[in-house]
């Protein structure tokens, strides 16, 4: 009957009570639903997770992601544009497929309240949102992954210190931490000099830092279990250097565990960017991002709902696709099995 409870983290089959008890305090979330999906990754057994052929849903998800990446790159590079995202047209302001002021001609998706083409803005917004999300994930994953591996591999005091660090970061709820970081980074950037850091980079750093302990914990758990495996012990007993063991033996095995959640991570970061934009600390206008578009025209929701709804739909479909692909990738890598 004890085995009925699915083990939360890979090593817990042999874990001590403290480790199990400690789990809850060692995890924290940014506040998005998909973030909990991350928790579910760790807790849910998903017995039916399969190595079957890809479902239609997964193919659609791949298609959607390919589509928006293409749009984003085209819009950013200007190879193919849908018009200037910053040009306003009086005739089109606030009009869209379903606004009170009638439909805008020649603009398939209508315009925002400044009369700018929604299609062009969403396209460039896709770039901004993906750029911030992927950037943040790179920050969070590289630093968090590295610290996690070090923590799990060396154990002892290093482990205690780093785990403690993760715990402190995790004890502030993600949104609050990100908000506080953005506020203080912006405050510092303003005072520092004119050549201040761009808002995108501030967002990347803030969201990235929030991600560090999340990834760190997963990497630590994975590294810990691999460190105890025979071939690693053998390598170490033969006098191999730590760096070599980490790079040659640990990293290649820990990487799949980290990578398998990177898609979910991007989804979380996209939502985080939107959340911060709504709270008023997003990218600087006129640069569009999905969150920015929503934040700017939240006030026109009741009269011109298309602006908010179109950007929301982009976020929804993208997060849905990423969650779906994240599930597929996890099943493919079969991280849990590989670790045990």
């Amino acid at each position, binding site marked *: *009957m*004890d085995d*009925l*409870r*699915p083990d*939360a983290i890979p090593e817990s089959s042999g874990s001590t*009570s403290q480790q*199990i*008890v*400690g789990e*809850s*305090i060692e*995890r*924290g*979330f*940014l*506040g*998005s*639903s*998909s*973030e*909990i*999906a991350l*928790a*579910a990754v760790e*807790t*849910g*057994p998903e017995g039916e997770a399969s190595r079957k052929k890809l479902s239609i849903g997964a193919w659609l998800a791949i298609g959607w992601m390919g589509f928006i990446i293409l749009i984003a790159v085209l819009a950013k590079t200007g190879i193919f544009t849908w018009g200037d995202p910053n040009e306003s047209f009086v005739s089109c302001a606030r009009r869209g497929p379903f606004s009170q002021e009638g439909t805008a001609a020649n603009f398939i998706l209508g315009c925002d309240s400044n009369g700018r083409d929604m299609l062009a803005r969403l396209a460039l917004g896709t770039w901004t949102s993906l750029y911030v999300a992927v950037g943040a994930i790179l920050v969070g994953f590289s630093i968090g992954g590295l610290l996690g591996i070090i923590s799990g591999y060396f154990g002892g005091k290093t482990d205690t210190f780093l785990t*403690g660090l993760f*715990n*402190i970061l*995790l*004890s*502030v*709820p993600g*949104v*609050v931490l990100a*908000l*506080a970081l953005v*506020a*203080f980074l912006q*405050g510092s950037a303003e*005072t*520092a000099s004119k050549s201040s850091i761009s808002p995108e980079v501030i967002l990347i750093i803030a969201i990235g830092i929030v991600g560090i302990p999340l990834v760190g914990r997963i990497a630590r758990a994975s590294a810990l279990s691999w460190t105890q495996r025979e071939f690693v012990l053998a390598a170490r007993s033969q006098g191999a250097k730590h760096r070599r063991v980490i790079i040659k033996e640990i990293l290649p095995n820990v990487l799949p565990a980290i990578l398998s959640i990177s898609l979910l991570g991007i989804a979380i970061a996209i*939502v985080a960017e*939107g959340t911060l934009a709504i*709270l*008023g600390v997003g990218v600087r206008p006129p640069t569009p991002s999905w969150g920015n578009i*929503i934040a700017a025209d*939240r006030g026109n*929701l*009741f009269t011109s*709902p298309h602006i908010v*709804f179109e950007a*929301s739909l982009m*976020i*929804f*479909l993208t997060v*849905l696709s990423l*969650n779906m692909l994240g599930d597929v990738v996890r099943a493919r890598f079969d991280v849990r099995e590989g670790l045990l």
Partner: protein
Amino acid sequence: MELTKLIARRAVQLVIVLLFVSFFTFLLVRLLPGDPTDIIIPFGTEAKKAQLRSDLGLGQPLYRQYIDYLGNILQGNLGRQYSSGRPVSELVAQSLPVSIQLMIYAQLIALLFALPLGIWAAYRVGSRSDAAINTTGFALLALPNFVVALVLSYFIGARWKWLPTGGYAPGWLDPIFDGTRSTDIGGHFNYMLLPAITLALGQIAIYMRLLRSDMIATLKENFISMARAKGISNLRILWRHALRPSSLTLLTVVGLNVGALIGGAIVVEVIFGIPGMGQKITLAIFSREYIELQGYVLVVAVLFILVNFFVDFLYTILDPRIRRGRSAT
């Protein structure tokens, strides 16, 4: 007793974490570049700035400043909002119960829907209703709080006019924190329902999916087949035999979710104009009330830690495996 020892150990850990977190919030203001007083009160007169400098203990060694800061916190002194001169603790007393109520409602609504749906899906695993529940849950997971909030306030608030899209009336918890308030339960729920549903929707999906997969595993166990063989009714098996083991998983996730709930509550409060901590935090950021912000971050973090500690505590009591593991060592 071993259990007390375990709890004592956790309590020590708790204190250490609390110390570190307070140090972290302490550093937030101290790490501002230049003279923090110029950033905190740019319009302040020299006398005001001098006052703030002495409040912050600037000029003293860092450890001394921290000890003073800690001493102030322990006396309930979180500093002042400089624009109005109000103590931050007073602002916390006004806004914290609002957020707590919102989160409790969201949690209750989520469990109310997630439990039956999750159980049903697990019981009828593979059926059409299972697929429908599962797919809906998956879709809900991809809907950020702010999107749900905006969609609901558009349809339910503006189009159909079923519920107000903003505002607040004090509920049952507000008078406890702030004696000058009187409760208006009808108005309270009228205002809180839409935000609570918004916040609950994402949680429903999480609990439901978790419960479903957990129970599917449980239902495959031998003791369930045995119970079936004994002729116990399905309903009874589901509620009494299968749900119990999953309740622990659920408990853990409910605890973990508090972080997500706090984050979600901030956005929901801002969108629905509810005067809770979330609104206070964002306003503090915009008006550069760093001392005020520092106080809020500390309060939120401490609460979050305490809730998790409480969940751990429950977990320790409830999970037989932990107790058995302990007696084995």
